[in-house]
């Protein structure tokens, strides 16, 4: 099947436009991070006058970026790991068993996407505060509370993706393991999981990204000690001055880990979506 000239040119035009659209903010982020403060206080310049890494040094002292980074890393990784562990069991149940309520469970999982975050932000805030008063377990403004909140945010989609991966693993393997006398748990850990490793890793990265990028709950549910990057990055704007070069440098630094992780695993995301969406 040959491509006509018209098609080739429209392909080039469309892809060029989309490339420009995509790349402009990325360019602004990288180039501004390399500018001295003088350059970002006047009209925008395309090229830094004297490229320097000063912004990458100053950004740590303008706001307590180190603490924010540590909080974000801790909250996101713990939330991701717990979320995926729970999702593995749930997905195993949905993928390999028939039970009453299976359909309802699947529908509920997807319908959580429908809830406006703002609807349960406030009740959750009150529940955490009251739990703290009643039991002494501090969930409000604590990293524990954020972890619990965030892991449920990624749970529905993680389960859905994992069901897709597990479904693509032939059931013959399970049966072979059962003939050898393996129970369901051994089947899961020794047969299914090793086969689904790329999928599980992709879902872990997704869960990490969800927690890493959440803004609304982070801005209400944290205090100075538990503040994450999502809120902390707004601290570069003072009453008199916005340190745009430092904002861009910090944005770049906090983006690199998640972007790298996502792009390395994009193939498995596509595979997971394919498995999940065709059904």
């Amino acid at each position, binding site marked *: 099947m040959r491509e006509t000239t018209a098609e080739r040119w429209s392909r080039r035009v469309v892809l060029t436009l989309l490339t420009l*659209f995509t790349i402009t903010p990325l360019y602004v982020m990288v180039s501004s991070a390399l500018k001295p403060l003088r350059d970002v206080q006047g009209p*925008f*310049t395309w090229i830094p006058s004297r490229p320097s890494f000063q912004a990458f040094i100053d950004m740590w002292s303008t706001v307590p970026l180190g603490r924010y980074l540590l909080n974000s890393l801790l909250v996101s990784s713990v939330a991701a790991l717990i979320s995926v562990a729970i999702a593995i069991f749930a997905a195993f149940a949905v993928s390999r068993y028939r039970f009453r309520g299976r359909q309802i469970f699947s529908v509920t999982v997807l319908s959580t996407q429908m809830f*406006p975050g703002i609807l349960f932000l406030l009740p959750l805030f009150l529940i955490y505060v009251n739990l703290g008063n009643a039991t002494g377990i501090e969930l409000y403004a604590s990293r524990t509370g954020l972890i*619990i909140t965030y892991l449920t945010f990624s*749970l529905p989609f993680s389960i859905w993706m994992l069901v897709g991966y597990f479904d693509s693993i032939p059931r013959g393997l399970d049966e072979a393991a059962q003939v050898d006398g393996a129970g369901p748990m051994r089947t899961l850990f020794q047969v299914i999981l090793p086969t689904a490793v790329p999928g599980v890793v992709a879902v872990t990265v997704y869960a990490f990204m969800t927690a890493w990028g959440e803004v609304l709950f982070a801005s209400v549910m944290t205090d100075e000690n538990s503040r994450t990057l999502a809120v902390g990055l707004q601290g570069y704007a003072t009453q008199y001055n916005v340190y745009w070069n430092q904002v861009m440098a910090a*944005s770049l630094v906090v983006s690199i880990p998640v972007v790298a992780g*996502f*792009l390395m695993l994009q193939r498995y995301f596509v595979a997971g979506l394919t498995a999940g969406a065709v059904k």
Partner: protein
Amino acid sequence: MVTTTTAPVRAEPSTPGAGRKKKPRLPRSKLPYLLLLPAIALELLVHVIPMVVGVWMSLLELTQFQIRNWSAAPFAGLDNYRATLDINGPVGEELLHSFWVTVLYTTFSVGLSWLFGLFAGVFLQRPFPGRSLLRTLFLTPYALPVYAAVITWTFIYQRDTGLLNELLTTTGLADDRPFWLIGGNSFWALLVVSVWRSWPFAFLCIMAGLQNVPTEMYEAAAIDGAGFWRRLKDVTLPMLRPVNQVLILVLFLWTFNDFNTPFVLFGGSAPEQADLISIHIYRSSFITWNFGQGSAMSVALLLFLLLVTAAYLLVTNRRREHA
């Protein structure tokens, strides 16, 4: 949707090995519930119970005076809903305005994101040098943390120091430096950021869907003399229908509930032309401390989304059956 037909796992009569102790097995019927227990417990704590509490709060007169002792707040019945839905009252009038802004925003954003995703997906079907590089580049905005990406756009839109006005003044498209984050321009500024963030997700899903289209179908269409548009209409779109059904719904729900983009772009109070409903409810709840009112608005929004989703699924499923 997840609908798989799985044969129930048969209990294999295991041959008792010599000297091997058999561990007691859980009865088959109970195991799935046990496996689902942690997921269900957490969903209950963070989603379901707060939702129920939210509905109850919407029936209370809950302002900053009662928040310390909120369980003793006076019962307001449907007063908050009356205020929410009374389009002649001050609360309802503003909410309705914000609702229409959100409808417009969602329509444009979902439509454009889907179109961009479709064309990028179709044009990247053929192998050519640099294809995988482009694919990676296009997915980058989706992978970026939302606040890092949107704060960069905030910088682009700055009146005096931003890239956009610099571009407009040097090319002579604008002679003064317009404001982008206040006034009428703010709606379009917000929309561009929204599309920039969501179209890669559409692209990702469509790319996944296109991998299921056998090349023979295109070849057969080409032999029949179908050009680019005919192939798109007769092969690509029908094959993408199941993907599109879920994709458009998810995009719609995300965009309609979008809080992060306007919140980072404008801060806590958006200009009235870009006053999305989630920001509006946030302000009604936190800035004015009227939590009962805010909860009533949230519940009304949820009911609206439920209705739209149900209608959407009915229509698309019926189409599928007729197809």
